[in-house]
């Protein structure tokens, strides 16, 4: 049994649940004469991947669903061997080059080269090009992005790229200008509700509209999250009741508790405790920017208007530094310490006002 998220993933451009207009455009693009490189961007859980897979199916037919997992080996100029996992069909290959860190450039170059130089085996396919899907292009090093731009030009005749990323501002302009940008906005709450209802119908379950709405609200417009939530609700309690508990991921609860600790007491001792919890979050593979955003969201609730702005700016300041630096803990902790100090002062001042 696979997850609902996979099970009910639409496989056809015309069957997509939202952004139908865009889907129609993409269809037109496929049937038009030339197919450019694409840059698909949008927040996570907006359906970028689904859209890309539909597009592939539209291009090549059902053959794209026969997937195999392969391990590709490359060698860097410094003779280091690197391995990367790719998911491929006869027509396309999907890879996440940022998996190999600094060596992403090698992967980008070598992979595209191999793909472009191997001839299509099935001559009856109607496309003269293969498709390479690169995930998380925004996490590629600048070096790799420049290399990518070069390779894009070089192998235009034999392969097309579909680049997939969350934020297009981290992609260098040179790549952006060589691709057709496709923005995939997150579905709205109403759209999510509809999708949840269709999914439940397919599972022959009935979901009360209130619950669907609550889940949608709680999903932060992330459809994947919404469906996962819905499925875990199903596991926890069925038949559904409108006000049933919607499970949250453990780490979110943990993060909220951490924020509570910070608000409770502002002292070095507490900071040390919080540091331990941050380490815990990191070990559970929670990315730092998520920690930052989560903390900010919780902490701000305890401040007044002016302070809120100040805290937000602090978070932005230290999150940027975190990207520059190499020891996340320093920057997260500096943010927390700053907050503690500001908040303590704020409390003391308001106390003074009271008396």
């Amino acid at each position: 049994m696979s997850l609902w998220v996979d099970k009910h993933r639409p496989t056809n451009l015309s069957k997509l649940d939202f952004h139908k207009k865009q889907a129609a455009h993409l269809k037109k693009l496929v049937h038009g004469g030339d197919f450019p490189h694409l840059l698909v961007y949008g927040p996570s859980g907006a359906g970028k991947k689904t859209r890309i897979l539909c597009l592939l199916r539209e291009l090549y037919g059902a053959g794209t669903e026969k997937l195999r997992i392969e391990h590709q080996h490359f060698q860097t100029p410094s003779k280091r061997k690197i391995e990367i996992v790719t998911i491929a069909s006869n027509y396309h290959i999907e890879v996440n080059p940022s998996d190999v860190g600094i060596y992403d450039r090698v992967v980008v170059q070598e992979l595209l080269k191999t793909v472009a130089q191997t001839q299509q085996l099935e001559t009856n396919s109607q496309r003269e090009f293969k498709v390479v899907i690169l995930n998380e292009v925004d996490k590629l090093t600048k070096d790799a992005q420049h290399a990518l731009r070069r390779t894009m030009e070089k192998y235009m005749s034999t392969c097309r790229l579909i680049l997939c990323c969350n934020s297009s501002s981290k992609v260098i302009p040179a790549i952006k200008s060589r691709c057709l940008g496709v923005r995939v906005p997150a579905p709205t709450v109403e759209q999510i509700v509809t999708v949840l209802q269709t999914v439940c119908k397919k599972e022959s379950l009935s979901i009360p509209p209130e619950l669907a709405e609550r889940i949608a609200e709680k999903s932060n417009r992330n459809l994947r999250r919404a469906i996962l939530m819905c499925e875990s609700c199903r596991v926890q309690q069925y038949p559904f009741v409108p006000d049933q508990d919607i499970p949250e991921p453990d780490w979110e609860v943990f993060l909220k508790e951490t924020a509570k600790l910070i608000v409770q007491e502002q002292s070095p001792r507490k900071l040390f405790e919080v540091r331990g919890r941050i380490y815990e979050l990191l070990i559970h593979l929670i990315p730092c920017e998520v920690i930052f955003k989560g903390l900010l969201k919780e902490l701000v609730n305890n401040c007044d208007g002016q302070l809120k702005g100040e805290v937000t700016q602090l978070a932005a300041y230290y999150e940027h530094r975190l990207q520059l630096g190499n020891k996340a803990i320093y920057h997260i902790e500096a943010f927390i310490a700053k907050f503690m100090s500001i908040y303590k002062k704020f409390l003391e001042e308001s106390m003074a006002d009271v008396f």
Partner: protein
Amino acid sequence: MEVQKQLKTWLKSSFDNDFVTSSSRKDCRKSEYQKDEALAKTKRKKGIQSQLLFGERGGNNCVGESWIELFAPQAKEDLAVNKKKVEQIETWLIDSLSRCKNFLTTIKCAPIALLTGPAGCGKTASIKVLAKVLDLDMKEWVNPVDNSSGLFDDGFSNNRLLVSATTQKEQFVDFILRANKYSSLFVKSTSGRLIVVEDFPNVFLREPEVFHNVLQLYSKTGRCPAVFIVSESGSGSSIEHHLFPKSLLAELDIMQVSFNPIAPTSLTKAVSRICGIAKVTLSKSENESLVAASNGDVRHLINLIQFFVKPGSTSRISKECKSNSFAGQKRKKNMVESSSSILGERDHSLFLFHALGKILYCKRDSGKEPEGQLPIHLKDKERMVLLSNAEAVFSRTAVTADTFTLFLHHNYLSFVNSAYITEKCCTSFSDANIICTEWSGKEVLDEYSASVVARSLMFHLEEDKLGGGQFWRPFYKPEWFSVLKLYRDGQAAVRNCFKEWAYTLDLQTQIIPYLGVVQPSADNAQLEIIKKYGRFSSGAVRPKTPGFHLSEKEIFEEFDTHSTVPVADPNPRVEDTVNMCESVVPQEDYIIEEYDD
């Protein structure tokens, strides 16, 4: 005698096993050395004389023998080492020898001892002397210099194959496992055998596990005591913690004797002993300054004496120089000063523990007024003069700025009481980290980053008088490295297990946590990952201990100091990611995974 010696060598090498060629040769030399004591003694005497008399003119009798060898202690009384230590080792040796004699009945595991201590504190000398006193056949492992030494030239075997077949590692294993079983044919007279290892093959530094296995094996099969000697050094990685972790020490019942730098009084005695043999006299002040300069290192001390005596041989060697005029004295004194400053004090590095203390307790000279008064509005920034210079402290620790900063970071919080000051200190860590991330300037800026942190802490902690250092606090090792390792391992594991999902943000933050709730029929590996990384309650991955104590003399071994941010970094620094890739799960894991599929 000469003929006999040659004969012996020849015979021995043909009887001995081929694999320990070079080491056995050395063994052979060693035992000869002991056996031909009388010869050596006369030779030594002659050598000293000739060296002293003709040495500077290029005397040809005894070239190349350094004073360290010449004046090696010959008896227990000669040892400058603390008597108790020597006794400790001696009783252990006697005890283990007796155990070994009837190993079939009583012995459980072969006796192993580990001697540690700074360089030149007489570890090896003690063992050598004791071996002689107890009449033991000492077998010493020496790293073969060249594998392809012409011993395989028998015309039949393919040189290359053989050489490549016996790596240093294998040779070592063979040595240690066989040397204790087969005694050399010619040294029957001794009352036992003793294996000494001072030189560790480099392989083991990279793969300590292999060494641990060897030790365990030896412990089971060994029939004579083995002594391992490890010199601590102030800088770099320490072999001790690598090769002999505490757990292993306990498991194999290894006796550890740690030597301290030799006390000045013993050193003074040693100086007079040597002077006695060498027939030189040194004035008291000379003696003292030499002892001080040697810093507890006998070897260094002897070197110093040799250097000190040689250049001014005309005046140094007292037999020739009887005129102890006032002028001469003065000159001597000058020489003492100059020579000890030229020869230099031993470069004594600071243990991390003390360095941390110097920064965090931050002693200030309360007697001295700070130079230059600050204007009124800056009065609160005024501090007393620092007793120790932050930069000097850092440079003497011999760790990288990264590590130093991490240690400070992990420990400073217990020194602060106020949230306001914490904030000020905390920002300096962030600043320091930013300073040294630009790889092109890393080498230069590293020092500055350490300086920024240390200075800022010293400055701000003063403000927090309450926490200023009245009471003692333990130091801990930073958790960051283990966190980072767990993070990377986790990432690799997750990537491996969830290949069909692209490794994106949602995988960690959404899919895995919810899979924990939904739990469809995932395979075992996936379930485990979900349990470990999706849940906070059940899968406590982080060790619960508050951190490991940093003991006073411990040397921190740095493993990838240039650690990366555990965010998926858009622009990872070059050297960062090199490490990142190095620490990715080894090849075998992937292979195992493939079977799972």
